């Protein structure tokens, strides 16, 4: 278990309980269970307390937790016959973006998502979930495919943002993001999106310009990282707490603003403490959203999507 900074007191109690039990295993006849159980109860109370009202900066930390289920985990658990389709037919295959055809509850779909990786090797391979232009261009190609064959598209968003690299800029990162967003708006098939961790700026928008958008309870979606915002507006990257607060990047605030349609509850202590339950809940949300859109004509799906985004934000927080 990887503990977050604000979970340190919890880590201490859980560590103590574990230590006691380890000692008992080595010294036969030593009875620690009563004490250890008391520590367990204390830890459970503390966990409940910590997660009852996570402030925005803590939510950012949970959203970025390395043990959270990532795109790959959702694809493995929720879909069958997943067949990755690679490449942008132009330059490369971007491993920060997973995508292909699969079946969801027997029905063929196209699934696209950012993948961050789960250990040093895969994180580097996946470029920490930061797509390059090729990733967006692969997504565009897959959305085109979905459109031509009438397949619903499911996108799973989890990215710190687009990759700020030399090659990515040279190969037209901005244009690739713009075209991907445009493609999202053009396709005549249902497009549903779930923000499963970090929805970082343009790299997220390029996949999440959808008919229905859901967010996990402790995920975030923002125009800029709190650290970036703090260093620009506060001229001090250490003011990320204040920035996280001001940006209104939590699922709860985004629902109030009408930017997202639903929140998917996470198990107590965050998705990282209940991976299977989280994945199942996301699966259920995807099914519900697809059901809401079923039977709609391609024209209506395109029109609905456009109207949704044209109307967005007109009321502010007062909505």
């Amino acid at each position: 278990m990887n503990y977050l900074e604000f979970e340190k007191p919890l880590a201490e109690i859980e560590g103590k309980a574990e230590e006691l039990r380890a000692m008992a295993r080595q010294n036969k006849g030593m009875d620690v269970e009563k004490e250890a159980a008391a520590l367990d109860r204390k830890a459970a109370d503390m966990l409940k307390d910590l997660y009852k009202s996570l402030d925005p900066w803590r939510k950012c930390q949970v959203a970025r937790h390395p043990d959270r289920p990532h795109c790959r985990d959702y694809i493995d658990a929720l879909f069958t016959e997943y067949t990755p389709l690679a490449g942008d037919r132009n330059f490369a295959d971007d491993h920060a973006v997973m995508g292909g055809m699969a079946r969801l509850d027997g029905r063929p779909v196209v699934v696209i998502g950012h993948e961050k990786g789960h250990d040093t090797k895969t994180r580097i391979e996946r470029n920490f979930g930061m797509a390059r232009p090729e990733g967006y261009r692969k997504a565009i190609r897959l959305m085109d495919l979905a459109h031509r064959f009438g397949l619903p598209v499911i996108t799973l968003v989890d990215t710190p943002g687009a990759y700020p690299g030399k090659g990515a800029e040279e190969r037209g990162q901005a244009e690739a993001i713009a075209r991907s967003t445009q493609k999202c708006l053009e396709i005549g098939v249902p497009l549903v999106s779930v923000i499963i961790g970090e929805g970082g700026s343009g790299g997220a928008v390029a996949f999440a310009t959808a008919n229905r958008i859901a967010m996990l309870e402790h995920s975030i979606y923002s125009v800029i990282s709190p650290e970036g915002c703090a260093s620009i507006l506060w001229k001090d990257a250490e003011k990320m707490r204040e920035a996280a607060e001001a940006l209104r990047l939590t699922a709860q605030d985004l629902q109030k603003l009408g930017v997202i349609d639903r929140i998917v509850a996470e198990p107590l202590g965050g998705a990282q403490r209940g991976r299977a339950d989280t994945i199942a809940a996301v699966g259920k949300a995807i099914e519900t959203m697809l059901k809401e859109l079923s039977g709609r004509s391609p024209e209506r799906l395109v029109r609905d999507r456009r109207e949704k985004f044209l109307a967005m934000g007109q009321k502010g927080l007062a909505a």
Partner: protein
Amino acid sequence: MNWITNYVRPKINSLFSRREVPENLWSKCPECGTMLFHRELADNLNVCTSCDHHMAITPRARFEGLFDGGIFAEVKVPEPVADPLQFRDQKRYPDRMKAAQKATGEREAMLVAEGEIGRTPVVAAAQDFSFMGGSMGMYVGNAIVAAAERAVQMKRPLILFSAAGGARMQEGILSLMQMPRTTVAVQMLKDAGLPYIVVLTHPTTGGVTASYAMLGDVQIAEPGALICFAGPRVIEQTIREKLPEGFQRAEYLLDHGMLDRVTHRRALREELITLTRMLLALPPAVKGDLPPPEPEAAATAATADPAEAPAEAEPAKS
């Protein structure tokens, strides 16, 4: 189009076209350091007369140089909710807004207008870098949607001049949502079969580049303009190496296939007229003022427009 519009209008307009410029004011070219007299600079569209450096130009000054005779009508932009997030950093967002309004004399970071260029009716939108870095929030989104709607309604092309540091952070996620919103506006033009020409000016970065500023039918940039998604400083911090000379400048993007053209500001108006008229399948623009009409000449001028001439007559003319 008859001789009256061709001949008389530019003359009348020229009476109004000279903008009030403050006298006896000098400014320094940030590139070569030459002191430039304000009137001379304004007459040269804010391009340094010594080194050709393209300085910032306000939307109003740009429109005065762009539209025939400097005459245009503003297109109304719907007001968004003020301070939708109740954002506060070291200052309150409404205070930052007020300061920007006071400094620029403008309502917000984009101006939309309609008028004629080379007697071709167009809608134009220009972003104001001097207003909070031209940043894109709800208002800029509304402005682009209004510009597209007006262009569709009037069946006119839209010419957009971009200039922005990116999204307006003080509007948080709602500024990010202007990326899809403005893309919907571009779709409206596309559906209506109307040209959408983007002129990227210094600097155009972030979410602005990654939405409407990169979706033009034709992409033109002003010389030396910085055009990027991630800025050079962020990239240098990430990759920990020095970037090549001219990286992310207009000429670099042209070389890498990301732009159609890099065009000097002085040549821009003519080029926009030429491109717009070709995209609209109109005859070439009449350059300059027409000579005063003779009675017979007026009759010829009335049929000189191929759009109005019978189709059979065209091969004979060429």
